[in-house]
């Protein structure tokens, strides 16, 4: 079931299969593989099948819809952070294990219009806090390439499901790398758009100034199709930019570009952080190949990017501590019977302590510490100043280059449990993805190669703010050059 959006659209047009037949196949695959992988928190078996049967009839009566709407009948999934009316949304937390959404997220609303098919919700780190999907209340998701390893996180369920062929694509969220790192660990494509491109309305907030939704899928073209459908202005998110939806897929299909048209920047010094040897060798070979193909590659400096992780682990917990203060058990969320507690404070403490896992507690506490009296200037204000310096580093770099290339992660997918008790080690694995979040830049991970042990290695391409068109052209050019087509056994 390793079909792309384009493959499925062609298949429908040629009448090779109908939506209901395709959905049945996906549902059987999920039954077969997901007991082990645990990539879904919920599968909407009956709902999606009856939706698909309706689409069968629509195609039978008029199949021109398949020309104008490429997402028609495409089976996708959503990270369990997006609200869908009348369905449970847990955000990977016991806090929300019974929470039923009473409205749609903007992302889902946009997808619903296309008549794509919602297979289910994907597992994730609790409240998107993690890089391994091990902090989920639903248990860890496994990596289909090696069931002893993590799929990355926090959108690990999305990445694992797409990589294993259990969904054609999924929408995830990326605050410090949570789309790109799992895409890299699972050998698929993951795109984080520019901040403000996609509405955050109805997406459970972690760090509001950094969170951004984007697709995890099989090809760069598929990522363009999905970005085009979920982007655009939304008055319900005050940080959503007043811009029309992107038109990246049409631009890519023109095929009027060549990698030689672009100048690629490499942040060599930042890559001296101690990359895994195989990752370094594979990345270096790609750069050599690009140069020998006549692509202009130049060295760039991002002198303050080395402070990204420290900056991020102030800003994100500060915002999280504020965002997650809404979970007090009064209006929604895990709640004890109020008659059994001494007072309101004990009620809050009991609800929050029982509902949140340790990593979420740690980040709320870090945030409250950094924002507490006397520490605000030293932490939050300072971190925002450093963030501005990182933005300015990127602005200077983009005076000379169109895109910046690096590996997506400094290391290969790690073993389950390997870093679970060492949060700082876990945080440091995001060193190459965090800078794009801080600078609000669009950034994509595409598969580069496999390690000797058959583990995926991802390539990250970062573009200028709001220039997803150029970013995806370069990514598409690199994807064609690399020609990665491997699929996992799991």
């Amino acid at each position: 079931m390793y079909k792309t959006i384009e493959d499925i659209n062609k298949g429908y047009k040629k009448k090779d299969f109908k939506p209901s037949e395709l959905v049945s196949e996906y549902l059987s695959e999920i039954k077969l593989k997901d007991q082990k992988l645990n990539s879904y928190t919920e599968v909407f078996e009956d709902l999606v099948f009856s939706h698909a049967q309706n689409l069968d009839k629509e195609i039978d009566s008029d199949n021109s819809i398949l020309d104008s709407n490429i997402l028609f009948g495409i089976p996708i999934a959503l990270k369990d952070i997006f609200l869908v009316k009348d369905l449970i949304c847990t955000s990977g937390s016991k806090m929300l294990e019974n929470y039923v959404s009473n409205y749609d997220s903007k992302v889902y609303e946009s997808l619903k219009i296309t008549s794509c098919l919602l297979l289910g919700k994907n597992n994730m780190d609790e409240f998107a806090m993690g890089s391994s999907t091990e902090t989920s209340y639903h248990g860890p998701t496994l990596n289909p390439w090696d069931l002893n390893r993590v799929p990355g996180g926090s959108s690990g369920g999305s990445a694992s499901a797409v990589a294993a062929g259990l969904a054609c694509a999924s929408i995830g969220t990326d605050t410090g790398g949570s789309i790109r790192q799992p895409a890299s660990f699972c050998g698929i494509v993951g795109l984080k758009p520019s901040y403000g491109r996609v509405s955050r309305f109805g997406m459970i907030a972690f760090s509001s100034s950094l969170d951004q939704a984007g697709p995890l899928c099989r090809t760069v073209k598929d990522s363009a199709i999905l970005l085009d459908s979920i982007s655009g202005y939304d008055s319900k998110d005050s940080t959503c930019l007043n811009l029309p939806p992107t038109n990246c897929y049409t631009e890519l299909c023109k095929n009027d570009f060549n990698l030689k048209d672009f100048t690629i920047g490499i942040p060599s010094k930042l890559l001296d952080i101690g990359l895994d040897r195989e990752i370094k060798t594979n990345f270096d070979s790609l750069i050599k190949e690009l140069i020998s193909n006549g692509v202009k590659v130049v060295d760039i400096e991002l002198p303050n990017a080395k402070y990204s992780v420290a900056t991020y682990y102030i800003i994100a917990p500060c915002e999280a501590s504020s965002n997650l203060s809404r979970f007090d058990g009064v209006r929604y969320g895990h709640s004890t019977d109020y008659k059994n507690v001494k007072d309101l404070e004990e009620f809050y403490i009991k609800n929050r302590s029982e509902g949140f896992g340790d990593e979420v507690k740690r980040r709320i506490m870090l945030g409250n510490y950094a924002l507490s009296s006397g520490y605000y200037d030293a932490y939050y204000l300072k971190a925002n100043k450093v963030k501005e310096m990182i933005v300015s580093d990127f602005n200077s770099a983009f005076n000379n280059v169109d895109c910046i290339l690096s590996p997506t992660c400094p290391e290969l997918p790690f073993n389950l449990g390997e870093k679970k008790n060492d949060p700082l080690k876990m945080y440091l694995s995001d060193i190459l993805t965090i800078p794009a979040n801080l600078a609000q830049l669009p950034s994509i991970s595409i598969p580069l190669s496999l390690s000797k042990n058959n583990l995926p290695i991802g390539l990250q391409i970062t573009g200028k703010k709001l220039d997803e068109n150029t970013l995806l052209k370069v990514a598409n050019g690199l994807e064609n050059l690399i020609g990665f087509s491997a699929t996992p056994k799991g």
Partner: protein
Amino acid sequence: MPVDKKLVEKISKLSRLNIDESKINDFVSNFEEILNYIDLLEQVPDNSNQNEEDLISDYATRDDSIIEKLSNDEVLMNAKNKDGKFFAVKKVIDEE
């Protein structure tokens, strides 16, 4: 401020969280390690006179008008403790 059990307990209280006694030592050592790492930012020279207003984005606003609303039942549907049309909590005001 030294990172010790007392500090972690103070911050957990501020956060309306209770940390299990068996986990407190882990929280203290993780906190210490993370805060030491974050102190890396002290190395960055602070030459700017930027204040909070310069750094926090100016977000878009819109008219404060009602566009759509959830019904009373919808708003209450996820609440465990309710009383008629209201959320119910322990009484917070003492009777005179």
